[in-house]
């Protein structure tokens, strides 16, 4: 590759499982590559790898992260080039090992190596706060916290922010995933203000609950590439904020009604 870079390593984490860390990692990684940056997405969830599946690269895995740290292969051999994007690579997790296979020191060394080659290193952290989480944050410069508008997820996010601060990763940014504006309006779901009130961190973006995410995940094509989906737009905005642009928050309300009701309005004036 070109001359040495000084990339930024961003860990995507949440504490609680199932809030959308892997989906977020895949979309941010893909989105950054779409903006022309060289990106590697690193699956740190050893033993429960998913990122390769979400990105549709599962059948290309030969070597994985454990092979790299154990020096069974060269780093470049383990990097999988994305199907669609020139500068996007995946470093897959091992599926047959567990979290004890990698230490924090090895991770720091690996991430520093990757920083020389890429603009962004997106680290998909495992759920929990055990060893897997510890090594996944070890090499990170910044952190993105993913939460859903549920008290349990927010509570775990709060815990994780505290641990990140103890590990000298300050000012993480927050993505609120799977928000349903209709439920928020009825008062049945926590709104963004409630969440920010507790967590007191910068908001990076809000992603609506959108069935397109499930469809795209199953197809192995991150939704960020979907021009029409609202969630895709939300992720594209998040990516633009990561690279330093000022982008207003998405208006989630008009979207949920969809085009049909807009047409109805136009046609019948309702």
């Amino acid at each position, binding site marked *: 590759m070109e001359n040495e870079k000084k990339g930024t390593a961003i860990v995507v984490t949440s504490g609680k499982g199932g809030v959308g860390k892997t989906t977020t990692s895949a979309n941010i990684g893909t989105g950054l590559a779409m903006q022309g940056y060289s990106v590697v997405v690193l699956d740190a969830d050893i033993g429960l790898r998913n990122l390769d599946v979400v990105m549709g690269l599962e059948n290309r895995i030969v070597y994985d992260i454990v092979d790299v740290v154990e020096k069974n292969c060269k780093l470049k051999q383990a990097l999988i080039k994305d199907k669609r994007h020139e500068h996007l690579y995946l470093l897959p997790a091992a599926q047959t090992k567990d979290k004890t296979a990698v230490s924090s020191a090895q991770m720091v060394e690996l991430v520093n190596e990757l920083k020389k080659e890429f603009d962004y290193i997106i680290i998909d952290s495992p759920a929990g706060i055990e060893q897997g989480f510890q090594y996944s944050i070890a090499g990170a410069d910044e952190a993105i916290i993913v939460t859903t508008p549920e008290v349990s997820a927010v509570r775990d996010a*709060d815990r994780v922010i505290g*641990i990140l601060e103890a590990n000298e990763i300050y000012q993480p940014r927050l993505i609120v995933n799977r928000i349903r504006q209709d439920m928020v309006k009825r008062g049945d779901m926590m709104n963004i203000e409630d969440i920010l009130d*507790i967590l007191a961190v910068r908001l990076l973006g809000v992603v609506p609950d959108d069935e397109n995410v499930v469809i795209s995940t199953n197809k192995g094509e991150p939704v960020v590439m979907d021009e029409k989906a609202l969630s895709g737009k939300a992720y594209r905005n998040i990516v633009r904020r990561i690279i330093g642009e000022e982008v207003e928050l998405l208006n989630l309300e008009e979207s949920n009604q969809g085009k049909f009701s807009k047409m109805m309005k136009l046609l019948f004036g309702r």
Partner: protein
Amino acid sequence: MSDSMISIKGIADGVFISVEGNDYNKIKQALELKINENIDFFKGSKLINIVGDELTLDIKTEIMLLLKYKYDFILKDEEIPSSKEIESQEKSQASTTTNIVEEGMTKFVHGTLRSGQEVSYNGNIVIIGDVNPGAVLRAKGNIIVLGLLRGVAHAGIGGNKNAVVAAYSLLPTQLRIDDIIVRPPEGDSYYKYPEIARIIEDKVIIEPYLPNK
């Protein structure tokens, strides 16, 4: 100088200390030397009294605080001379500041306490920030939160029923003062004014904090 200045006698179920002189620093030095010689024995012992010919009430109070907070001494009748006693002995002096010394040492924490974080202290705790759900505060003295208190606060650990918990917004998961545990009523209310919790007749009473009261 040191040995002869202090004598510590074990009587009945506690210790009796007699001191000479009226120089607090010297007394403190000698006393600490003595205690440290046999720290395991003295730690947590019950203090019967401190006497001395030249002993002033101020020095006595200071020594008691030192013993209480540094060496976990248990004070008889729970407490350092009450304000009444001080008043009676120092009638001539203005009594507006008499309570300050009783409050003991204070730990200040700057910033928000998040879930899983815990602050324990042998005196008072002041948090300059919020206390989020899942965070725990434990103090032998009072707890003051200059922000939202949503975690668990335990004040007055070890029998201090005079301890209070106060916050700009008092919404704790659970509130404990000494051995009394209370939960806030169901329903998430958001109080916009400061409140203070204290024990009155064995019940924790929470009321708005009014500076003029």
